[in-house]
């Protein structure tokens, strides 16, 4: 039995189709992250699952029951909002218990449930306060508590951490992961933050223009991106994309004399595409040893930034840009030409026209 199933979900506003047929199926206990830049339709999709927006077509099934046309309150879901959406006039305890109150749970049972939830989230000392007396992180905990207390089939999170500062965001991220491991809940989580997606998800759906570009585990999204878009969206600094032409087993980087040997199993497809994009993650580049013959590409060093654990080097090759993440003590000179070696296993090759992985 799947916890959530989306069948050909479509959404249209006037002439603009914001969701173009979304299909996915979620197993019990999965943590699915909908990842994409703003306007890709991820929040609309979440609202459709919640019942806060109506799909123009398709079906939403929660626990093998179609919930299309069913009011949010009867869908057995709970939702955490980016703005926390706490009721300002109610105490923290009442905020958490409000869903139970509306479902006619007796006050005694409600108190037990609220106490238990507060203990899990370590906010027992805040129960008597009003939301206005809480910090951002505390409000976020209360918002999560309000969802948790109801023990629904599915939790929906709409960019829950984006209003927090960087340090708190990391803490809450870990907290969410801990909660998911502890409670084994099924979660659909919307974010534009690829780090959140990579760290939290059991599966990531990368969305673009109302479609799912790739649906896979974080490891696969990172190491085998299905499209050029996914490859450039996930990873920081982003993957280098070198427009090239394929011939004789080599990708010749456009506008330069540099070329990269491609693994043999890619030759046939690369030859068919001819115009290809070669992707290399910044950590897939190393400084080539002088005097040792190896294939490499020559680039002019433009900017060197030390982030602490690594040295981020920005260089130009022809008219294209190249970023490399090197060990912090690497010897590079701004303005000089530098040869970079490429780990052939770290290559990602995309058809330039279709942007699909070869």
């Amino acid at each position, binding site marked *: 039995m799947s916890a959530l199933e989306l069948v050909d979900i479509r959404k249209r506003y006037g002439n603009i189709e914001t969701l173009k047929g979304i299909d996915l199926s979620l197993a019990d206990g999965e943590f699915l992250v909908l990842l994409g830049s703003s306007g890709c339709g991820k929040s609309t999709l979440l*609202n459709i699952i*919640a*019942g*806060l927006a109506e799909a123009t077509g398709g079906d939403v099934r929660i626990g093998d029951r179609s919930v299309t046309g069913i*009011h*949010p*309150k009867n869908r057995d*879901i*709970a*939702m955490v*909002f*980016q*703005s*926390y*959406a*706490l*009721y*300002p*006039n*109610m105490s923290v305890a009442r905020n958490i218990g*409000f*869903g139970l109150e*509306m*479902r006619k749970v007796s006050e005694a049972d409600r108190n037990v449930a609220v106490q238990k939830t507060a203990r899990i989230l370590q906010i027992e000392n805040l129960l008597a306060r009003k939301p206005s007396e809480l910090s951002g992180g505390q409000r976020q905990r209360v918002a999560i508590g*309000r969802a948790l207390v109801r023990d629904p089939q599915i939790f929906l999170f709409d960019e829950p951490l984006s209003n927090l500062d960087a340090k708190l965001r990391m803490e809450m991220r870990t907290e969410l992961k801990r909660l998911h491991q502890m409670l084994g809940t099924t979660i659909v989580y919307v974010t534009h933050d690829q780090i959140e997606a990579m760290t939290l998800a059991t599966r990531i759906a990368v969305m673009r223009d109302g479609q799912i570009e790739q649906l896979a585990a974080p490891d696969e999204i990172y190491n085998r991106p299905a499209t050029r878009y996914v490859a450039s969206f996930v990873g920081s600094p982003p993957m280098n994309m070198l427009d090239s032409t394929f011939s004789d087993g080599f990708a010749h980087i456009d506008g330069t004399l540099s070329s990269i040997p491609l693994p043999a199993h890619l030759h046939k497809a690369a030859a068919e595409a001819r115009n290809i994009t070669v992707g290399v993650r910044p950590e897939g580049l190393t400084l080539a040893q002088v005097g040792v013959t190896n294939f490499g590409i020559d680039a002019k060093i433009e900017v060197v930034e030390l982030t602490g654990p690594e040295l981020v080097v920005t260089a130009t090759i022809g008219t294209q840009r190249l970023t490399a993440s090197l060990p912090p003590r690497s010897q590079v000179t701004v303005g000089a030409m530098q040869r970079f070696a490429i780990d052939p296993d770290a290559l990602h090759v995309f058809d330039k026209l279709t942007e699909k992985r070869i």
Partner: protein
Amino acid sequence: MTNNWITTRAWLLMLPLLVVMIAVIGWPLIDTIRLSFTDAKLVGTQGSFVGLDNYVKVLSGSNFQRSLLTTFWFAVLSVSAEMVIGVLAALLLNQRFYGRSVLRALMILPWALPTVVNATLWRLIYNPEYGALNALLVQIGMLDSYRSWLGEPGTALASLILADCWKNFPLVALIALAALQAVPRDITAASMVDGAGVWSRFRFVTLPYLAGPLMVALVLRTIEAFKVFDIIWVMTRGGPANSTRTLSILVYQEAFSFQRAGSGASLALIVTLLVTVLAVAYAALIRKTAGAS
């Protein structure tokens, strides 16, 4: 610059305003207080000092008590109806539907009309011979024959209240609508997911956002309703049989129709005192609500 100079300059800058205020509010007020202790007439005699006679007479007289009651009913009924209708209208106009902005603009119209125009319009509607209300009620069979709505003591006050509501509910609706638009979308969505029905959502989620602004509307409207004069003067002049004679009408009659400046002044001061008490009580209430949220 010394603090002294800043203070002096502030007073100097306010001086023109203070002079004007003393001339048009302060002096008349003091003179009214003086008048209220005399038996002065509007024309002729300056009057002589009679102590608290005017106050005793006014407060013990049946005219004042009856007018106070009329004013009370007018204020309570019209203001509460305006609040309810105003909030309902705001809830409706807060929904998404075609033509919403046109309706929002149209709604303000009655409130934007001068009271005299509004009162005249309603006199035509209530007209016993060719009024629209009579025609409507007779044609749909709710009434056998035309009635004189403003001419019968039993219906005159209610008719006035209806006219006043029509004019003033838009103010409440406008304030409520502004407050409704300040309710975050996420909070409404959260309450839907939490399982709140339409009524619970209004009661627990929307109303707290409306409470503050509505309190302001309530204060404004109650004080205005307590002082009501123009709409009644145009429509009934306090009649028939004094059934719509509110305190302001009574003051006017006493001071200008009967030309008893002395007792008119004492009545006016009593009304002023009542309104001040209302204003202070509401101000305290508003401070309390503001402190709570």
